[in-house]
């Protein structure tokens, strides 16, 4: 009896380890799901930091899986009321001063968003971290006191991705993305993303601070700080509409 129990326990542990151990994609998916939620509303500050100056911006965001998002700029006054809406592959920009909704060309996705170190694509995620890459484990390390998997992500040939390779460090126990490195197609490091200040937000333990650091520019970075996050709010795809671009506040 005891032997059977031992074997069962061993097998369960082994199988569980095997399943987790083999499926890097699943770990990336869980980390992504944890950070993003099915639907979410957030309030955050984005600070563009340069050696001699900085600019701070406050935004509110609403999102539903990876297909729908709406971003409202609430500060500074100069840009207040500006809204970006993304529905699948389409993006619109509401310009309050002229009361017009402008459809943005896809080529704008790779541009810096509002002068920051991330692109429109980083912010509203046209590409999927799960479906557009193949994933594999390449090592382990400890970040912020947490055991992490280092996972390599290689974009699939047809994927709408600019990166040649991505490394992502995800904590083994609670699936927190703690560090990311983005490489270009020639294998050079372009950006590092460093996460920190893990605390409970929206009912989940999460890194509430994210630094986006371009590798080749000393002293440059973009800091994202989450102030409020609310997950799994009851919004449907129809919330992401032209009508609500004018209404959100």
């Amino acid at each position, binding site marked *: 009896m005891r032997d059977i129990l031992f074997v069962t326990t061993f097998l369960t542990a082994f199988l569980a380890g095997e399943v987790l151990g083999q499926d890097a994609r699943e770990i990336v998916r869980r980390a992504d799901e944890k950070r993003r939620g099915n639907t979410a*509303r957030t309030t955050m500050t984005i600070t*563009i930091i*340069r050696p001699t*100056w900085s*600019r*701070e911006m406050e935004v*509110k965001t*609403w999102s539903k899986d990876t297909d729908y998002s709406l971003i409202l700029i609430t500060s*500074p*006054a*100069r840009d*207040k*009321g500006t809204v970006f809406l993304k*529905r699948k*592959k*389409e993006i*619109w920009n509401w310009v309050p*001063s*002229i*009361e*017009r909704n*402008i*459809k*943005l*060309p*896809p*080529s*704008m996705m*790779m*541009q*810096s968003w509002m*002068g920051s170190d991330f692109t429109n694509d980083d912010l509203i995620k046209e590409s999927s971290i799960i479906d557009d890459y193949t994933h594999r484990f390449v090592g382990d390390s400890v970040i912020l006191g947490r055991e992490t998997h280092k996972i390599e992500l290689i974009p699939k040939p047809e994927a709408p991705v*600019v990166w040649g390779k991505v490394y992502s460090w995800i904590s083994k126990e609670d699936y927190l993305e703690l560090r990311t490195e983005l490489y270009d197609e020639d294998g050079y490091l372009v950006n590092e993303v460093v996460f920190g200040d893990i605390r409970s937000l929206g009912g989940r333990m999460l890194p509430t601070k994210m630094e986006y650091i371009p590798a080749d520019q000393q002293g440059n970075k973009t800091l994202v700080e989450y102030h409020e996050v609310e997950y799994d*709010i*009851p*919004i*449907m*795809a*129809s*919330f*992401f*509409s*032209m*009508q*609500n671009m004018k*209404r*959100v*506040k």
Partner: protein
Amino acid sequence: MGPLGTKLLLSFLLAVSFFHLFAQKDSLESHVDPKGYANDPGQAVTGQDEINNTSSKKSQLNGYLKNMVTLNITNDSVTLDNLIHNRLNYRWFYNENLTIYLEVRNRLFAGDLVRTVPGYDDAVDLNNDYLDLSVQGPEGRSWLLQSMIDRAFLEWYTGDWEVRIGRQRINWGMNLVWNPNDLFNAYSFFDFDYEERPGSDAIRIKRYTGFASSIEVAGNIHDDFDEVVLAGMWKINKWGYDLQFLAGKAREDITIGLGWAGNLKDAGFKGEVTWFYPYTNSDRLSPTLLSSISIDYSFENSLYLQGSVLFNSVGSDAEFLDGLSFSNTGQLTARDLSPFEYSTLLQVNYAFHPLVSGGLSTIYYPGRRNALFLNPGFTFSVKPNIDLDFIGQVYFDKLAGEYQALARLIYTRVKWSF
């Protein structure tokens, strides 16, 4: 509304502004419970509850203060003018279905043009409005003050319906520079300092039928039926394109039109076509087709390119005709976007630095006159809410048989947004 009513409204708005500027921000906000979203999926469709529950302000005031110096260089003189321009946008969220908008621009003109151009005070108040919501303030020999309410409307909305009554901007443009579909208040590319555009005294009823689709009917108010614009618009989103169809009457024309915004590969592709058929006075007006098309593309390094063409079926480059008008921009209608048959635009923009961007817009009017408009500009973000702009406008055209620069303007502008 008489001048007294206008003055009262302006006084009210000023009082409200001061209250807002000096009051503690928190005391003006009544917080509501941010929780309690719609649980019924049916209710959450428009997201109305989501918005109402997460917003906390009862009213909102913003605006800007600009100072612009204009140097106008002509063949035999140089004039210098200064414009202090303040805009206040006030919104009162009366309840979850009703919002009241009031927006005013106050301008203090001073300089050579005010002093030397007769009737300058009237010229700064040219518009298409029915109600007179402008007040000429005190004026001296070389300065004058003018205030104008260019938005004053009620907006009532519930579910998918939205009704706006009062002075409002009905922006039907879809293309980036030339908008033949913009029947109520066309945008003049030359009047860059008034991006909000004048409003129309109008009623607009709109029903949203999907995320990018709607049906609306709008009409402006006027004693003279020949000044009335009354039209309907249907918007849909199909095959990755935003499409719009319009029909109605625009001043002395029966009009139909369509507009689109979509993509060709990674480039933006937008256009508008409007057909005007005069139902009166056919001697002065003739049937006209106006159409514009644009393609724009953004490179990764922030270089932005736009090419656009405007076609006007009754346009002409005959030398006896007037060239471009820089003065009556407040009264521009969709019919008068350009006097030429073809207008072509090439726009280049580049961010030299996250805080510095510059660009050049070139409009060329092919034909015997070779009219050319050059518009370079630089913007510096000095502080988060302070911008400094340097803008040039040069216009070459053939006048009295001689090709010459008919306008050379240099603008320096500081803008503080609050």
